[in-house]
């Protein structure tokens, strides 16, 4: 039986009440497909951070997870403002979050940095006023 598996979920911007719902569901599905331990955890954390990014900054987005025999690839596409300075956005502690986001416990400037830490390969493509695509790859 092939271990290939793909799943996609839409994420709505500004919907803080549901922040993390999609990621918890993705973690459950991945676990059901035999992903365990550190790899499962890294995939879940990267997905969660991405989900919170969409909710905090974009109008809407989509999280796509594809599992193959040797990797998990997670693509996060959003329709939002885009990232002006990717290098700066990647820095630990840098954040454009407002007070509302901070009082919820987010916006400490750890997101992209943390996603990169969880990935074996990580790429950001962003276009101002259009949106951002994050490509995360985790080896199995």
């Amino acid at each position, binding site marked *: 039986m092939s271990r290939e598996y793909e799943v996609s979920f839409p994420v709505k911007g500004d919907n803080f*009440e549901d*922040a*993390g*719902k999609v*990621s*918890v569901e993705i*973690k459950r599905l991945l676990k059901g497909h035999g992903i365990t331990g550190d790899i499962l*955890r890294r995939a*879940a*954390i990267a997905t*969660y*951070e991405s989900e919170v990014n969409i909710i905090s900054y974009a109008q809407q987005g989509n999280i796509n997870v594809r599992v193959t025999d040797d990797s998990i690839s997670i693509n996060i596409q959003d329709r939002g403002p885009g990232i002006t300075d990717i290098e700066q956005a990647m820095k*630990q502690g840098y954040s454009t979050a407002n007070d509302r986001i901070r009082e*919820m*416990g*987010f*916006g*400490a*400037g*750890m*997101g992209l*940095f*943390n996603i990169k*830490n969880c990935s074996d390969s990580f790429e950001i493509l962003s276009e101002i006023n259009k949106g951002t695509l994050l490509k995360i790859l985790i080896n199995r």
Partner: protein
Amino acid sequence: MILREIADLLDAKVLAGEKHLGVEVKTAFSADLMSDVLAFAKPGSIMITGLTNPQIVRIASIVDNSAILIVRGKIPPDETITLAEELDIPILSTKYILFETSGRLYANGIVGCIRKIEGPGSVVPL
């Protein structure tokens, strides 16, 4: 310490996961910033926080925290407790502040779940 002992030590109410009170906890991570929990908390550690929204349960589930310990006597909304039962994450609530709670647990042998941060983002495990 097992969760039951932590609850006794801190005079804490058990709000979810009663059946897991025998789980042993050796490490902790205190924070109100969920970004930091996601970046630094380790599997098996207890999350100590002043937040009560359902996100804390989702995050505990994502990073494999053994339990959540809410401080300052805050009682989370029903959604948080329902979600905790669903995702099997015990929740305790103590009246002590985050500083006092951490201090008492540390005095009883619980240690931080990471030793320190070395250079940007690289974490030295215990």
